[in-house]
């Protein structure tokens, strides 16, 4: 059985760094003690360069190996992460990152291969990519895949550029409009704009879904397509999805799938069967690769037959003799979005994860993610307003409206107070169409005990809001720094050491 839960009365310091601030690298520098030594040069010096080509000084810090390691250890201690706390950051799928992925990514045959080696010297790497392309198309029901995009947002760019190329290829230049639900991630309209499109927001109806009447009204012969997240950013499955995609298709538009929430539907439904024409996949969410304090990710895109000719290059193909090759030149391709063949190190981790799960394992991932989210929904429904009171998928959106109205406590204060209890706050103030929103995604990897503790903490915070609202407004209380002055940071930006106003 599970051991007794820690006492909620004692909030705790989740960031274990001491009170001392950690100096900057520039402040740790001690010239004359280099931290790394190279082999000795064993050929003659090159001729010296013309002085006009040379720089004057090289103002880099110089720090011994131990102190570099200590510096980053101290910085690490000033962070929370999945490995240290419950991290229900909605829409980011902060699931456990299996350690075996890391071991695999560090194999010399994965980590120390040059991207321009001849195909015959990288057959294993190409086979891995090929098999991953196959797995991703099978999971999503699409025809083919590109593994090149560096992240979800770049996957969106790839997808929308392909949709644009499709229209242009058909000689249809009128299409300039992209439809985006009002609950969409900011990347969707930003991507559409990068592709030369303007966006029209489609409102959310009373059930938290795309307003079909408004959609129909906007679907004319200038619609290039629609960008749609399913389950949507409210954590709800769009029940009229097939109707939505049919309406857009009938107008001659294509439907872009934002795969941010794929973790809810592995083995549950294939997006291609719902009428999507393409979909990006955030492997750092769904397929457990580390989020890296903000990156790297990887954003493969899977497409229907219609968009296959436009896939970015290169693609991995298998020849008749069973060998694998990179194809660099395809006449209708949208071209290249980054150097080389994608974030291979990340893709190798995702492949490992998929191979460890198989069909039943992946389905169980999504089922458990959805179970965990609905359990939290059931447990929190009486204290916080549900944005939409119905079965959710892998995440739920609640509103802190009641706390604000009754006690003058805002969602930001609830988030900061969660930090005192050793929980990373959920995503807040998103989606934009929910007041005082908290978007909670527990993921499948959390235990019931962790979920139960979260519920008790959320209850406690609601009580605190009534008893001592100032306690919440001043939170967090136990961190190396308190709430920071973001206004001055933006008004008088100090973005590097040695710049005006910094303390160096």
């Amino acid at each position, binding site marked *: 059985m599970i051991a007794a839960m820690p006492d909620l009365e004692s909030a705790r310091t989740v960031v274990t760094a001491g009170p001392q*601030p950690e100096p*900057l*690298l520039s402040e740790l520098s001690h010239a004359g003690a280099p*931290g790394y030594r*190279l*082999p000795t*040069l064993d050929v003659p010096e090159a*001729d010296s*360069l*013309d002085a006009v080509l*040379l*720089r004057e000084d090289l*103002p*880099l810090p110089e720090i011994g*190996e131990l102190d570099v390691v200590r510096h*980053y250890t101290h*910085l690490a*201690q000033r*962070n*929370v992460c999945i490995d240290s706390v419950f*991290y229900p950051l909605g829409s980011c799928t902060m699931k456990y990152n299996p350690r075996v992925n890391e071991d695999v990514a560090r194999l010399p*045959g994965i*980590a*120390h291969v040059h*991207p321009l080696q001849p195909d015959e010297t990288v057959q294993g790497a190409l*086979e891995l990519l090929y098999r991953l392309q196959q*797995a991703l198309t099978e999971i999503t029901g699409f025809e083919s895949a590109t593994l090149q995009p*560096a*992240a979800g947002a770049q996957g969106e760019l790839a997808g929308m550029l392909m949709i644009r190329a499709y229209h242009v290829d058909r000689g249809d230049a009128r299409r300039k409009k992209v439809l985006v639900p009002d609950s969409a991630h*900011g990347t969707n*309209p930003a991507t559409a704009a*990068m592709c030369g499109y303007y966006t029209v927001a489609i409102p959310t109806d009373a059930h938290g879904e795309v307003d079909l009447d408004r959609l129909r009204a906007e679907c004319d012969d200038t619609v290039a397509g629609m960008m749609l997240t399913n389950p949507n950013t409210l954590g709800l499955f769009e029940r009229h999805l*097939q109707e939505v995609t049919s309406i857009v298709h009938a107008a001659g538009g294509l439907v872009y799938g934002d795969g941010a929430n794929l973790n809810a539907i592995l*083995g*549950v439904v294939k997006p291609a069967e719902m009428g999507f024409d393409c979909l990006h996949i955030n492997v750092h969410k769904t397929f457990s690769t580390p*989020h890296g*304090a*903000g*990156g*790297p990710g990887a954003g493969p895109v899977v497409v229907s037959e219609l968009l296959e000719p436009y896939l970015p290059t290169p693609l991995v193909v298998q020849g008749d003799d069973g060998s694998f090759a990179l194809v660099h030149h395809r006449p209708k391709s*949208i071209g*290249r979005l980054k*150097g080389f063949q994608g*974030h291979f*190190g990340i893709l190798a981790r995702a492949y490992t994860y998929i*191979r460890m*799960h198989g069909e039943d394992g992946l389905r169980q991932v999504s*089922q*458990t993610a959805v179970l965990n989210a609905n*359990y939290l929904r059931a447990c929190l429904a009486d204290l916080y307003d549900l944005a939409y009171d119905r079965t959710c998928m892998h995440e739920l959106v609640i509103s802190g409206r009641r706390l604000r109205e009754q006690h003058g406590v805002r969602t930001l204060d609830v988030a900061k107070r969660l930090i005192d209890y050793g929980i990373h706050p959920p995503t807040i103030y998103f989606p934009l169409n929910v007041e005082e929103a908290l978007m909670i995604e527990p993921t499948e990897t959390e235990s*019931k005990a962790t979920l139960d503790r979260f519920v008790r903490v959320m209850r406690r915070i609601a009580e605190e809001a009534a008893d001592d609202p100032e306690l919440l407004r001043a939170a967090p209380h136990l*961190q190396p*720094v*308190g709430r*920071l002055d*973001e206004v001055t*940071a933006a008004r008088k*930006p*100090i973005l590097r*050491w040695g710049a005006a106003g910094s303390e160096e």
Partner: protein
Amino acid sequence: MPTFTQLTDLDREAMLQTIGVGSIEDLFADVPADARFPRLDLPPALSEVEVQRHVGRLAARNVTVRDWPCFLGAGAYNHASPSVVSHVMGMPQLATAYTPYQPEVSQGTLQAMFEFQSLVCDLLGMEAANASVYDGASAAGEAVLMAQRITRRERVVLSGALNPQWREVIQSYVAARGVEVATSEVALGASGALVADQVAGLVDARTACVVVMQPDAFGRVHDLAPVAAAAREAGALLVVATADPTCYALLRTPGAWGADIAVAEGQPLGLPLQFGGPWAGLMACKSRHLRQLPGRIAGQTTDHDGRRGWVLTLQAREQHIRREKATSNICTSQTLLAIGVSAYLSLLGPEGLREVARQSRAYAAYAAAEIAARTAFRVATPAPFYNELLILGPVGGEAARHHLVERQILGGVPARSLDGAYPDGLLLAFTEMNNREEIDALVQALAEVGA
């Protein structure tokens, strides 16, 4: 089945009861019944032991840059990567955190971003930097979009000696925006050497920016004063792109040449090659262009007690606030890789980085002299060059490479595989990871061609 879930059957039962449904399947009633729970035709699940064996076998079928001498460059360079770099990047509190939305519990990440921005400014001689973008090539694409926003002009001039992949990425980024792209020609002179880049002559009053590579795709180091002057005169921005920024241990910086925007690939600064990524794109600009710089940026500030701290700042540029009017759709930085770059630069310090550059240049110079003296190939890259060379010989680039692979040498990139209009030679790159013995073997193998 290793799904990394932790619920027991009892847990599940209790949770379903709390929710008020009979089974997990009931939670999926919103999914159309005819499409619900499809079959996935995937290979059976593997245990940890089995998956390590499986991927281990795939990995073993790749030749690594540790197995054979490596002279491959063209955008990725086999420089030394200190052990500390990968161990720092493996620290779980850095690797398994996400974007620092909550600064109080993300000071480690934010301080590291600020340090990286500072190092990028110092290395490139620039005034402001972001916390990285995907890679050098996409940084070049973002730089061109940025220049277009600043100048509101619709024409872009590229050097033909800009890495062809980077040019392709720029093309993809501007394709949808009706931007005209003019590219300077790469040509061989009568002497068989590459002629000077004519890119400055293409800059006109409609030009948003001119993008040059330093050193260029053939290793040449340029005096950028003429192109900087041409840009200045036309009111265009100068974008300096660099594939191997170890050169800035020695070379005059983009900032010193007058670059408005500087971009570079971070991989050569201690990051493992990984068959192409993930790496980090360095992107910096003059302060006056800061508001148009895309990507995450950390800024220094204080808390209510006056303690120094860091936050994400200037966020109103970004997609989550500005949406369709954002500077870019990018919403991540390559933070973990940026941390690796910072650790690398701090460990090496000025002396260490100068030694990397000195050795890389010396091995390239030695190889150039040996190839010219002992083989039927000639060096087409004119001096001064940094650590990369184009050689032309009795056979084309593909054949030369094939010959080297048979001698177990990862021997260069056929220039035509990068750009069909390039001379049919082989691009060779050199770093401190090479030595005389390796280069002598390379020269010996090349001497066998056409002998």
